């Protein structure tokens, strides 16, 4: 077997040979990696960790780096181009967060589906449908039966019952529970209450997800076809609920504030303490426990550096957002509500994917479905559940973007809502081939797309240019995904 001294040699090889696609590099890894297994127990120094990260990058494990660099470049570009100074203004940056939040949340849900190697094209119109039910309830003063008409109402209720049955069949208990809540809310006909209406929207999302999940996972239809069909079908349902040319206004202070309101200065700082403190606590705790158990830990210096960077950046952002950013005499200050909403969903989603059995199985199904099946994982259940999660996230996203607009129109969630969400996930580094991606990718990708749209809009670009640029950004992101995969495939063998 190869001597341990081959480790440094490999690093040198990488340094002197910037083209790892060469034949020598391809032949090298197997023997170069054959160092002693005992390395695993010794802690790495910061410089080693950085070098390891660079090697990973060269091998095609890019993660969110391209998107982060792109985001930085876009900020500099738009700041330079926008002569009036509107783009870098606080008002616009806060507005940018609120504009992008809805699609970003849909994208977070889509990451679950993309991780299993499937696609949910119906997430957009499913979100529109959830928003339409919510808005209809508000506009009709709680009288859904009257607003929908008896026939539609009964059919709607039957679909919800069907979803409960399917969720039970698939043994997705949470899906069945939320669908049951939807049925109860539908049948008891509660008076208008924004919180219950939002809950209802999410439950409607779950109902939709149960149907999609059943068709894809249990029946075995390709997700592309199922969700394409549902994409069209939900559009019809939205049109039926709202009526041709109509719009449902969301005239409710709570619903309006979801995307337009801000935390008070005090709560903004509370959010900062909880978020930054929580991040630091999680990282330090992991570091300490890994050290204690004698497992390989990242260099403590690097961890502290990471924490310091996050704390400082969060503090600056909070400080800026708590300043008055209103134009003229109107006072607008505080961190927008969408920030904690997105943060909570991101942390919850990341926790589920990284630390729970379900999350591990989602990655396994996306990486090698047969291996997952042989390991005793209920693949059908996992594949169905990701669609339920996707639709539920889509409904939450719908609440946010409807709140931003202040109304729900028949085109809600149609058009490019979904493609933006898919784009956000992919731009952030989630692979369309399944098995690779993180929830935070969707957030970064969503920020990129929101910045592009906001910046181009401020520059007074016509819609034609905005669409073109968005398309090119998505193509670039998908191209990076494919190239990095090819690269990592080459570097393996």
């Amino acid at each position: 077997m190869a001597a341990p001294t081959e480790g440094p040699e490999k690093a040198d090889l990488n340094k002197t040979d910037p083209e790892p696609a060469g034949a020598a590099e391809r032949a090298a890894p197997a023997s170069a990696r054959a160092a002693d297994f005992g390395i695993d127990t010794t802690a790495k120094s910061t410089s080693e960790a950085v070098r390891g990260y660079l090697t990973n990058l060269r091998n095609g494990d890019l993660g969110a780096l391209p998107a982060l660099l792109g985001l930085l470049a876009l900020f500099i570009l738009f700041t330079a181009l926008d002569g009036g100074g509107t783009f870098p203004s606080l008002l616009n940056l806060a507005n940018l967060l609120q504009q992008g939040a809805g699609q970003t949340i849909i994208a977070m849900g889509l990451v679950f589906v993309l991780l299993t190697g499937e696609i949910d094209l119906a997430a957009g119109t499913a979100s529109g449908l959830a928003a339409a039910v919510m808005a209809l309830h508000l506009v009709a003063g709680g009288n859904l039966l009257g607003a929908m008409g008896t026939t539609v109402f009964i059919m709607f209720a039957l679909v919800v019952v069907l979803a409960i049955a399917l969720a039970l069949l698939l043994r997705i208990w949470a899906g069945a529970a939320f669908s049951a809540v939807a049925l109860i809310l539908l049948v008891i006909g509660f008076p208008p209450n924004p919180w219950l209406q939002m809950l209802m929207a999410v439950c409607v999302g779950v109902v939709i997800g149960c149907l999609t999940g059943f068709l894809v996972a249990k029946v075995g239809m390709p997700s592309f076809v199922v969700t394409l069909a549902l994409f069209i079908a939900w559009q019809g349902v939205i049109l039926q609920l709202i009526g041709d040319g109509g719009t449902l206004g969301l005239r409710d202070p709570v619903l309006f504030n979801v995307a337009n309101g801000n935390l008070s200065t005090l709560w903004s700082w509370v959010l900062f303490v909880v978020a930054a403190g929580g991040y630091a606590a999680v990282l330090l705790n992991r570091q300490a426990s890994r050290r204690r158990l004698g497992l390989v830990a990242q260099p403590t210096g690097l961890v502290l550096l990471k924490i310091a960077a996050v704390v400082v950046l969060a503090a600056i952002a909070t400080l800026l957002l708590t300043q008055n950013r209103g134009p003229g005499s109107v006072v607008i200050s505080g961190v927008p509500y969408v920030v904690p909403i997105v943060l909570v969903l991101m942390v919850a989603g990341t926790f589920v994917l990284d630390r729970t059995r379900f999350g591990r199985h989602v990655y396994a199904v996306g990486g090698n479905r047969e291996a997952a099946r042989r390991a005793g994982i209920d693949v059908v259940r996992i594949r169905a559940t990701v669609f339920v999660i996707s639709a539920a996230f889509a409904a939450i996203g719908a609440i946010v973007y409807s709140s931003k607009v202040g109304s729900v129109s028949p085109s809600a969630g149609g058009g490019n809502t979904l493609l933006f969400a898919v784009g956000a996930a992919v731009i952030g580094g989630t692979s369309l081939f399944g098995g690779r991606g993180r929830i935070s990718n969707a957030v970064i990708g969503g920020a990129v797309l929101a910045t592009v749209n906001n910046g181009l809009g401020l520059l007074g670009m016509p819609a034609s240019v905005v669409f073109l640029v968005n398309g090119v950004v998505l193509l670039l992101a998908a191209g990076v995904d494919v190239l990095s995969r090819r690269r990592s495939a080459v570097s393996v063998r």
Partner: protein
Amino acid sequence: MTDPILQLRAVSKSFGAVQVLHDVDFTVRAGEVTALVGDNGAGKSTLVKCVAGIHPIDGGEILFNGEPVSITAPADAARLGLEVVYQDLALADNLDIVQNMFLGRERGRSWLLDEADMEQAARKTLASLSVRTVTSVRMPVAALSGGQRQTVAIAKAVLWDSKVVLLDEPTAALGVAQTRQVLDLVRRLAEQGLGVVLISHNMADVFEVSDRIACLYLGRMVAQVPTKEVSHGQVVELITAGRSGELGLQRPESVTA
């Protein structure tokens, strides 16, 4: 000679009209390597998949430690301590070594996995098998060579306090040095007291590591004999013709007819 740990009696399996296994008897003993040989399509992989619970058997019975057991799902086999290392390596490329080794049986609560515990157990298992070719147990499997992947797959099977490990062509895709590694590992498994079943086409491998050879011919078990008592040529005859002198089917022609 130890008592059989796993016994198959008159096991049959059909896929539609095609009967793949005819009344197969098969015995695995603890601490021994039993080689399962046979030509392509003889039913070796099917036999393994029946034991693993991937294909439920149509007839016959499976005895584990002398007790009849029913194996209808992979989880049943896992509960008994039967582990299969598949030809096409049931590893997920995007997960790391620890995650793969514990796939489907993660430790900790289902809402908070115990990563540290799993990592330590994985390291201990790899060390106990004298695996020295893996730099870090947190490496994604995609970054491993063929031999390393096979090693991880075998270590995964060992991790579970398994009683019987079935290896489906573990050396088929490997180079000389890597084959050596894996064969050493197979021998170590038997020395640790496990019952090992090795499916292989490579006669040199079979004669090197096995204690017993079982030969399938067109879905029938034609012989199960100690490796010392047969020659290379006899085994090849058993594989290709179903009989060799006193061994094997008395009238193999009737099978093909």
